[in-house]
């Protein structure tokens, strides 16, 4: 099919990059935002703008809240199709979990409820609540945490939950990205020789390609490992061996493990109250300290609630290394006696924990976190410049024909790159403007995001023209700059946390988000200005006022 190996790889790179690039743009951009998801949460939920707290007393503060948690309404509605009989008014409680990090001021509490008469015996649903750990007050359900509850799920699942379609699309995109990286390296003959080559003053095509190569190559290990680790994290979805063909093997191993660790898989059916959990937590912290790993509790899990077989598992908040360690310590729920201290992971488990930890970033290291953010944006730049290069090349070739397919690609490119930013900024503005008491506030916010994004596609199609191909880009970049500045201003006006106030108080979470927004506004404005200049020069040269190729083509090529 292809005359040479290199041509085959070029085809692979171009078409996988182009088609999957739209999805990858979304994954990378919202992945980059997810690096600071908890900080964005605080920006979007002003009631949560306080310092992260260690886990409060389970017995005094958390237990009463757990007892009040009910299943989430949407999960309950969806579950009715999965059971063969009617659902009772109160569902049996299976387990409690509470989770916090060094970046979270608030606590997340989850309860699992069993489904009697379910077709799949292991089926269960969840209820959850967000708590202010200082007082035990619940945060209103309407308060949508835009970072961890919107941008982050958008990053890994595109909010397409039907049959896990979103996960599959993102997975295919990740695989395509690996293929694009490998093929890109193979076709870039002088990879090392041209590593530092960036010629912004050369012809647009040259400088766009230089930037594409630069952003792709300097962060190559980052791009490769993030795609690979992302796939490994969701491997159970793509290759569900343990729940299908190998289920007997899997279950046998689970039973063997339960016998070994003393942590029962099933409840005994005998009711028993929970012993004081605070004492178990204190014991766990003492044991970590004795091992030279003093730390806060990151995750607490109570299994088989109210049963004699109940267990309480305490995990350390891992912050000082990449590996997702937990140093889990397990106690018998009814008595508080120690059942097991998790031993260090074996080689395979260790490698896996390192790779997943690399992706999920629970570590405490602000410079590295910012480097991750920049790496994500570099990935976006790589994809965006790829689109620009492709579009311009095709435009030159099809100038006479005015191919409709190219127009679609160009409109999609604008909408995916600039339009996505516009939609995000519009979401932040809506977050500040919508009244707190609005019912379904979260749904309205999200609708603003999706509708704005759709509108940018419409705008891009409408405003594109063969004579001014950059016009949609320029207008959307300008809109992005304006909306982002508006979001920062609205934060100051509606919450009183103006940038100078937050920075003076050392609130780097909210102040940092505002600063980043200002940075985005600046970049968008500069890009709009540069594109406008390019368009003007191109029009002038086409009109014959300048010798062909003068504008921007002079200088080093």
């Amino acid at each position, binding site marked *: 099919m292809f005359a040479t190996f290199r041509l085959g790889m070029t085809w692979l790179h171009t078409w996988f990059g182009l088609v999957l690039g739209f999805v990858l743009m979304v994954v990378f951009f919202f992945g980059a935002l997810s690096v600071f998801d908890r900080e964005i949460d605080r920006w979007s939920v002003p009631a949560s703008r306080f310092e992260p707290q260690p886990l409060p007393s389970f017995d005094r503060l958390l237990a009463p809240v757990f007892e009040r948690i009910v299943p989430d309404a949407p999960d309950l509605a969806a579950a009715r199709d999965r059971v063969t009989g009617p659902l009772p008014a109160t569902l049996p409680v299976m387990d409690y979990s509470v989770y916090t990090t060094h970046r979270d001021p608030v606590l997340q509490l989850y309860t699992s409820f069993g489904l009697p008469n379910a077709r799949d015996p292991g089926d269960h649903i969840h209820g959850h609540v967000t708590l202010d750990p200082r007082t035990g007050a619940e945060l209103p359900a309407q308060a949508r945490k835009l970072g961890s509850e919107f941008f982050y799920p958008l990053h890994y699942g595109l909010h397409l939950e039907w049959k896990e379609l979103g996960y599959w699309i993102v997975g295919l995109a990740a695989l395509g990205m690996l293929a694009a990286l490998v093929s890109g390296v193979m076709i870039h003959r002088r990879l090392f*020789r041209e*590593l*530092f*080559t*960036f*010629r*912004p*003053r050369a012809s647009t095509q040259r400088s766009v390609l230089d930037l594409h190569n*630069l*952003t792709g190559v*300097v*962060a190559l*290990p*980052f791009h490769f490992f993030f795609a690979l680790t992302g796939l490994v994290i969701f491997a159970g979805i793509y290759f569900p061996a343990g729940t299908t063909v190998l289920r007997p093997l899997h279950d046998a191993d689970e039973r063997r493990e339960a016998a070994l660790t003393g942590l029962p898989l099933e409840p005994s059916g005998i009711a028993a109250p929970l012993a004081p959990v605070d004492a178990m937590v204190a014991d766990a912290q003492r044991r970590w300290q004795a091992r030279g790993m003093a730390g806060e509790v990151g995750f607490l899990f109570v299994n088989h609630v109210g049963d004699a077989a109940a267990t309480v598992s305490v995990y350390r908040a891992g912050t*000082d*290394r*990449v*590996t997702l360690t937990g140093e889990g310590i397990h106690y018998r729920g009814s008595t508080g006696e120690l059942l097991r201290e998790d031993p260090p992971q074996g080689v395979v488990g260790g490698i896996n924990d*390192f790779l997943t*930890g*690399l992706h999920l970033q629970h*570590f405490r*290291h602000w*410079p*590295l976190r910012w*480097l*991750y953010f*920049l*790496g994500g944006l*570099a990935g976006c730049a790589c994809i965006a410049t790829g689109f620009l290069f492709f579009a311009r090349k095709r435009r030159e070739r099809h100038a006479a024909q005015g191919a409709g397919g190219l127009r679609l690609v160009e409109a999609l490119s604008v909408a995916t790159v600039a339009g996505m930013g516009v939609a995000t900024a519009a979401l932040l503005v809506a977050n500040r403007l919508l009244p707190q008491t609005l019912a379904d506030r979260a749904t309205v916010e999200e609708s603003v995001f999706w509708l704005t994004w759709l509108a940018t596609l419409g705008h891009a199609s409408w405003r594109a023209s063969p004579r001014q191909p950059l016009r949609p880009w320029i207008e959307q970049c300008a809109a992005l700059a304006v909306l982002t500045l508006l979001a920062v201003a609205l934060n100051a006006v509606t919450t009183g946390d103006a940038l100078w106030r937050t920075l003076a108080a050392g609130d780097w979470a909210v102040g940092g988000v505002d600063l980043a927004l200002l940075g985005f506004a600046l970049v968008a404005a500069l890009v709009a200005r540069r594109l406008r200049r390019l368009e003007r020069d191109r029009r002038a040269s086409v009109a014959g006022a300048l010798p062909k190729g003068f504008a921007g083509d002079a200088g080093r090529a």
Partner: protein
Amino acid sequence: MPDALLLTLALGASCAGQACLALSLESHWRQAGAPGRRPPAVRMRATGAGLLVVALMLCLAVNHPSIAALVWIMMNAVAATSVAATLAWRPAWLRAPGRLLADRRRAEGV
């Protein structure tokens, strides 16, 4: 020494190392206006590699090895981008390092 200072020094070493690697290539050597037509490639690459190792050591002094390795890798990406940007917009800034490491005999001879 405070962590912030060590990491800043590491970034500096990384930038300097990447600059040396860049200057070891003839096109960039000339772009910077360093003396002589050809760069002392072996010496530049050795110096560059050495500086990158220094950056890694500084990172390891601050954090657990697993984190330090990631910080170093990502830092190198930033450094390489900075060097590319410098070569694109202010190549003359790299003339002095080039001159420092140039082969004097060759520079005078050309």
